[in-house]
């Protein structure tokens, strides 16, 4: 069954065409999982005695005695642990890692393609791309001349840290400076799943309407960078730039915003300089 939306469709996560579980990775099982819980011993001194006796002259069914167990464990602890493991591994390799999220059709693939071409000679990039099906995006990205691993999630609506770990094992990370993870197009679920990235980059295309950041605040709030994409279409779509920027700032006041076009390359110079600088400080 689909684990995520409960739709009942059988789906399997594949990495570069192979079932995920059969894809080994130095990032998986590298450490011990360490889930545990405690029942705290809880004793009070009781320095007086009670004279307190009941007769119990009748029989009645007793509910089984239950005990409260305080757990306080993050439900996604498993994912978070793998994400931290990924982050440490990537950091040791001197990689800058981006998790690129947006609605479907916001232009993630074109933007990544163009960014990588423009970074040629400055940062060596690799891509992990997630989709429900097909390796069309991987094929498009390969044409930018960089190593690409496609994850097909079957029906899962987001990438998880374990999938990224296994996919990353397919790349020669030592030969890369930048790892771009193109998440599944979805503005809800990927917000909850840390992949071990350094920067979460959210795209908002001018064709999507100015109020999207207000409709999906958790995703926009979780991003460190917001790219206002398809700026070359702004006039044609009567895009209200000021309102969009205001909404972006409301949902994500801390985000660095770039106004770009993945198709024409408009604004990507500043974005590429930003990545080069981030990579420099990341390595330092």
């Amino acid at each position: 069954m689909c684990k995520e939306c409960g739709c009942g469709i059988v789906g399997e996560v594949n990495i570069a065409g192979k079932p995920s579980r059969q894809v080994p990775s130095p990032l998986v099982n590298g450490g011990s999982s360490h889930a545990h819980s405690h029942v705290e011993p809880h004793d009070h001194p009781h320095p007086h005695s009670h004279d307190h006796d009941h007769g119990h002259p009748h029989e009645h069914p007793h509910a089984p005695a239950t005990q409260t167990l305080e757990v306080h464990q993050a439900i996604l602890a498993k994912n978070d642990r793998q994400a931290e493991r990924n982050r440490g591994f990537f950091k040791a390799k001197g990689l800058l890692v981006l998790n690129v999220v947006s609605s479907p059709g916001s232009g993630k693939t074109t933007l990544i393609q163009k960014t990588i071409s423009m970074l040629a000679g400055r940062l060596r990039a690799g891509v992990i791309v997630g989709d429900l099906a097909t390796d069309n995006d991987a094929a498009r990205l390969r044409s930018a001349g960089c190593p690409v691993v496609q994850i097909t999630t079957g029906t899962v609506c987001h990438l998880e840290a374990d999938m990224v770990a296994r996919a990353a094992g397919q790349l020669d990370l030592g030969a890369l400076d930048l790892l771009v993870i193109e998440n599944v197009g979805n503005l809800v679920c990927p917000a909850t799943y840390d992949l071990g990235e350094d920067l979460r980059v959210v795209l908002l295309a001018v064709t999507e309407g100015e109020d999207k950041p207000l409709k999906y605040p958790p995703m926009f709030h979780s991003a460190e960078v917001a790219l206002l994409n398809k700026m070359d279409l702004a006039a044609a779509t009567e895009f209200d730039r000021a309102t969009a920027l205001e909404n972006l700032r409301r949902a994500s006041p801390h985000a660095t915003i770039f106004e770009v076009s993945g198709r024409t390359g408009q604004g990507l110079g500043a974005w590429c300089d930003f990545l080069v600088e981030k990579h420099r400080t990341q390595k330092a």
Partner: protein
Amino acid sequence: MHEVGIIQSAVEAAQDSAKASGATEIHVLRLRVGALTGVVPDALEFAFEVVRSGTMAASATLEIENVPASFWCGGCQAEFLPPELSYVCPKCGRQDVELRHGLELEVASLEIS
């Protein structure tokens, strides 16, 4: 949304904890779910009905504590609950507010035997 995956992880985590304490049955599973997680409590309950069979929580009650989003405004030196899913101080309009609550997604406690 991905409530089935979430509740599956929750039941797994609960079972691990319960087993570690030597229990054989989970009677109550208490979760805390923040308003900003995008997780819908009704969908969790629906998914729980499907996921719990065959687990230690097969006849357990699911109790969900909804944690509202709350923020700290440095300007007003006060915590506030946003009227809707917004990240702006309703008093002074300040935008760089600090998220205090709303992203909780945890197994809080269990009743076990």
